[in-house]
């Protein structure tokens, strides 16, 4: 093998790094040549993710807390908008509303909606979408999919290079995960009007550590802000 030629056996760290890169190349998880890097969300989240953001060519799972799941939709809308291209929205009843999505940067010209009432149809549509190189991200509303279907979607995403997001409501036992990451998004009471706050939990991340953040969506500059890092003059001013 060429690695013994390139590195001396004593240089363990270099050897390990090389092996890791080879394995990552085999798995393609989150990396696809010819495509720009991961989808950035917010500096502190991106640091926690091994790909430096939501990895493309991979599947991500989002658990929405609450019956309507507004914060999870906001989080996803941001990821879809920042993926940069055409976005497919697959749901039993797609209730996406462009006036709201536009404020997250997702224009109606980039949004395609698909109604799939049967799960088999929805999975098929998701797989076709992820395999298509003209799609930058696809969202599937699903009550939970089994490992085989998840693996198929993962392979499709790796082949096509799109960002795949599965959205489901949070449950006590979310079950095994095939996705690269799993998030749980819950609402938090806002401190200022029109500054929604979300509790974002990274439950699972392949090749990375989990974490928990409380984030604030600042619509005027289109940025997600980590409250732990941000100065909190707003809180004081509100108290005063």
């Amino acid at each position, binding site marked *: 093998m060429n690695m013994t030629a390139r590195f001396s056996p004593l240089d363990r760290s270099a050897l390990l790094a090389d092996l890791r890169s080879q394995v990552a190349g085999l798995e393609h998880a989150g990396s696809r040549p010819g495509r720009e890097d991961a989808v950035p969300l917010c500096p502190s989240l991106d640091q926690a993710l091994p790909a430096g953001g939501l990895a493309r060519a991979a599947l991500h799972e989002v658990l929405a807390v609450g019956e*309507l799941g*507004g914060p999870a939709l906001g989080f996803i809308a941001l990821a879809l908008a920042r993926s940069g291209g055409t976005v497919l929205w697959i749901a039993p009843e797609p209730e*996406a509303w462009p*006036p709201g999505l*536009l404020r997250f940067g997702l*224009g109606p010209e980039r949004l395609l909606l698909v109604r799939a009432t049967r799960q088999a149809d929805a999975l098929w549509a998701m797989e076709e979408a992820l395999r298509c190189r003209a799609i930058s991200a696809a969202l599937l509303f699903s009550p939970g999919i089994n490992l085989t279907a998840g693996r198929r979607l993962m392979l499709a995403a790796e082949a096509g290079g799109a960002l795949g997001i599965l959205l489901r409501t949070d449950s006590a036992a979310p079950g095994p995960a095939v996705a690269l990451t799993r998030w749980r998004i819950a609402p938090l009471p806002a401190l200022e009007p029109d500054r*929604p706050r979300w509790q974002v939990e990274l439950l699972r991340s392949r090749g990375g550590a989990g974490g928990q953040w409380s984030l604030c969506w600042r619509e005027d500059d289109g940025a997600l802000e980590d409250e732990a890092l941000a100065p909190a003059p707003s809180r004081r001013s509100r108290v005063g």
Partner: protein
Amino acid sequence: MRRRVCRPPRLTAPAPEALPPPTLPPSGDTVGRRFLALHLPLLPVEATGRAEAPTLVWRAEGSARRVVAVEPRAAALGVAVGQSLADAQAIAPAVRPRPEDGGAEAARLEALGLWALRFTPLVALDPPDGLLLDITGVEPLFGGEVALRDRVLRGLARLGHAAQAAIAGGTLLASAIARCGGTVVPPGQDAVAVAGLPLPAMRLPVPVLVGLRRLGLERAGDVLRQPRAPLARRFGAPLVLLLDRMLGEAATPFRSLRPPPEFQVVREMMEPLITRGGIDAALSRMLPALCVQLGDAGRGVLRLVLRAHRGDGTVQEAMLGLGLPSRDPAHLHRLLESRLEALEPRFGFERLDLLAERTEPLAALQSGMVAGATPAADAAALAQLIDRLGQRLPVWRLAPRASHWPERAAMKVDPFASIDTPQGWAARPRPLRLLRQPEQIEVIAVLPDAPPRRIHWRGNWVNIRAAEGPERFEPEWWRDRPDRPVRDYYRVECADGTRLWVCRAGLPEASPRWFLHGVFA
């Protein structure tokens, strides 16, 4: 006889006194066109299924039951068309009577029309019992007009249909001659043939026919010899128009059963195709051939039809509509796959036609370019994806619309439509998700027109931390029904931080109803 050179040249030949119009050459659109008319006299019998015993078909005309079609075996027993049913049964008790089934006849006629598409792409129905084939230019493929006619008649006989055929330069003339027994009118001899037609063959309205008979006119030539103006005054313009159409001086509409394909590939099978695998194999050879034709012409198909002819003369069609033109055999095959399941080969398909009914110019993609690098390749990939998804599921886009009413702010459009967002659209905070069916809620507020403090929703009370509003939406009177109430929308935040869009439908003093309409991030 000396020729007069000073007269202006005549556009038409001078009409001799004895035989006025026959030497007129046909003019107008019908010049040079040739039509094959088929008349199926026994269609009422044949459409109701095979008969073991001699059969007749009757129709109720008022209180009388009249015989409309008679099998040859029954005719040999003395039954004839036009007798009353009682007479016919008295003459030949062995003959089985059947009531007429107009629906079955029409269906069978249409099936035969589709069957006849194998001879020419332009076939029209001539109800109740005729077909018209525009055979202009196709007869050399079959070895001449007579050979073509014989082939059509043989095919019909194999399907169990007795038929009479005529070929002429006009549809009405051909159809009339077919009803009289059928012959081939040589090109240019239409006028002579018209003159010889008996009047009943022209399918005139009964009062007109009776009136002409009363004048002692028996043939179309007799009528043509009459002065036009009194004829029109007495029997109406339709008679004159009919004569003109017969002579080819006025255009006759020809309503083709199917639009003529722009490109087609046909495959006749030696053995009938019964299995799906066989159909797939045939398609995998036909599709590339069609795509080569399309490629040579620089076009892509928008509407593809697979027409499968079954051995019993019925035809099944699978239609495929594409959003953007394509000539990629693999893509077309994948799209057709879902449609093939609907085909019922039963005894097997003996012929498959693959037709590109609508095409559009499609520039060739330069081969050898890096995949994914060109926007054109990406657009093609997206179009193929939408086509595939659209075969199975509803796919659409939402286009902004100049309306402040929430349900109308975005409308469903075709996934291939281009969308532009007007300036200032969605300038105010709006929910990400608009419920298709707003949920009715109960609300407690301090004052009737104050923002909500608590809402009762899905079975429990929720405290409201903060509310902003109202934002009043007046109904669009130019579109709406007049009694639609005004809406006051509030953006509210529940105690746990869930942000909702609730609205009060109706003015606060008029016992309004409250709805949950949307969800914010």
